[in-house]
């Protein structure tokens, strides 16, 4: 999974596979982080109380 | 029944000369050498005898002059010893036979039939030796029994080999349970269809159905000796027939 595992080889197969994998993982990670941070910011700004609903 | 038991080394723990008793053109002797030290509190049978003789004294002690069994073997095998130690086997270079012709009056005697009435027992049961089953008094070791096919033993059931045509006449299929009856006894068996066996004949492996030792050997298959009896050759007194008449019925 990581380049320091001894079965790791820098070949096309590893690059394509792990490229796709890390791309997806990053999208998921960044997406959810963005949602959480934005929710925190919104809350501090006072959004989301029932008056705004 | 015995008052005294004197456990012997097993073959891997002892020296022993192993003469080949039959089947080869010239006299052949093998040598078994110890490859492991004795695992239990046992003693070589030869040494037991030497000790006994020594204790009894007199001419008996004089007849067993060796310090141990290895010395006894070395001295009695004389010039063969070195060859045996080197090659493990000694073969006589030439051998003289008593004659070159074979005559046996019994060959002209009437054929001896197997036990049992053909009308009541339509099949012929033949025991066979399997290379993977030890049929002597010591049974299969666990690895050997593991090599036995599932068409010879399956769980605790033993099989008989039968020609598919004969099996079809009785209404038996591959693996069916059947009751095997002979004039000597009966046993529950499974059938294995085998094109190679003569119609009308059924065969069962020798060396199964042990009651002794442990779960690796005991209670597997049927002891065929309980199903067959001796038929004596009137001229020699030896067993003349291996087989016996038998009947198979759907169980």
């Amino acid at each position, binding site marked *: 999974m990581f380049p320091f595992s001894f*079965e790791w080889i820098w070949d096309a197969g590893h690059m394509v596979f792990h490229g796709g994998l890390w791309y997806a993982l990053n999208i998921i990670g960044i997406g959810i982080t963005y949602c959480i941070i934005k929710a925190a910011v919104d809350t501090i700004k006072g959004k989301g109380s029932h008056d705004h609903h | 029944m015995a008052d005294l038991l004197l456990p012997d080394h097993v073959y891997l723990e002892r020296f022993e000369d192993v003469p080949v008793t039959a089947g080869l053109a010239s006299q052949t002797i093998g040598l078994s050498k110890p490859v492991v030290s004795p695992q239990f509190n046992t003693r070589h049978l030869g040494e037991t005898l030497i000790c006994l003789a020594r204790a009894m004294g007199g001419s008996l002690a004089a007849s067993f002059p060796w310090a141990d069994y290895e010395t006894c073997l070395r001295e009695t095998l004389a010039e063969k010893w070195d060859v045996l130690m080197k090659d493990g086997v000694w073969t006589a270079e030439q051998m003289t036979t008593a004659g070159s012709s074979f005559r046996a009056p019994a060959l002209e005697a009437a054929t001896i039939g197997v036990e049992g009435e053909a009308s009541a027992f339509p099949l012929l049961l033949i025991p066979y030796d399997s290379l993977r089953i030890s049929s002597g008094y010591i049974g299969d070791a666990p690895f050997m*029994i593991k090599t036995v*096919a599932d068409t010879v033993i399956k769980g605790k059931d033993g099989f008989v080999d039968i020609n598919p045509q004969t099996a079809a006449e009785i209404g038996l299929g591959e693996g069916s349970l059947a009751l095997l009856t002979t004039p000597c006894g009966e046993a529950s068996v499974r059938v294995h269809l085998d094109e*190679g066996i003569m119609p009308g004949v059924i065969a069962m492996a020798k060396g199964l159905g042990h009651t002794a030792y442990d779960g690796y050997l005991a209670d597997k298959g049927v002891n065929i000796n309980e199903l067959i009896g001796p038929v004596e050759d009137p001229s020699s007194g030896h067993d003349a027939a291996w087989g016996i008449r038998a009947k198979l019925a759907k169980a």
Partner: protein
Amino acid sequence: MKHEQQHNPPMKYGMAIDLDKCTGCGACMVACMSENNVPFKTDESNKLDSITWIRVYKLTNGKSFPDTDICYLPRPCQHCEGHGGHSPCVSVCPATATDYSHETGIVSQIYTRCFGCRYCMAACPYHARYFNWWDPVWPDGMEKYLSPNVSPRMRGVVEKCSFCFHRYQQAKNKAYLNGERRVPEAAYQTACTQACPAGAIVFGDLNNPEHKVHQIVQPDPHNGNRSKNPRAFRLLERLGTNTKVYYLSSREWVRRAGDNYLAHETTGHVSKPHH
């Protein structure tokens, strides 16, 4: 290892098994189990969960008495090379727990890496791979016979014939100490080869013209390593598994039983696999 690879051409260990010599005695199976610390249970009659790295099959020509002919076929792991090391099992293992060695041609199995998904077993058409459904148990005192050179396997992992790889490692060390560049033919032989009383199994380097196995098999590298010996065939050759165990028989029906043929095809002549 890399150093040696640079100086030595790669080896390809393989076998030639003469089926016309095999008596079906099972000595190879016993020798193998004993050599490789294969466990045993009280009931081994269910052959679907009985571990036998080399298993002797009984084949018949299907004719009725008295024309019936039988043949015993010992089946170790076939150590498939596939196409460039793409053996059926190695290519599917998700955890790299089995590998094809380009140095020796041996398909390895790393027991401590295997987590027991059994995909390799599904991939192997020879049923040469076995799963440890139970933890191995040796009767009291019997663990003394275990070979210290082979690790016993725990429950939940797959195992298979390794061509007695530990013997290769020992022979290689010995050759190195003796200053030899290559492992001599006699120095590395599998347990089954040595145990066969009929001398039906010949083991060695298929790449080395001095080895007996090469002389018997005469593999043709330009024809997918097919044997030039007319008596020789490989199991399921047309699947493209490119195995390193060759079988020999003078009987046509035996050679035909080694592969799947369509009704109109003649034995030994099949079209090339599609992949």
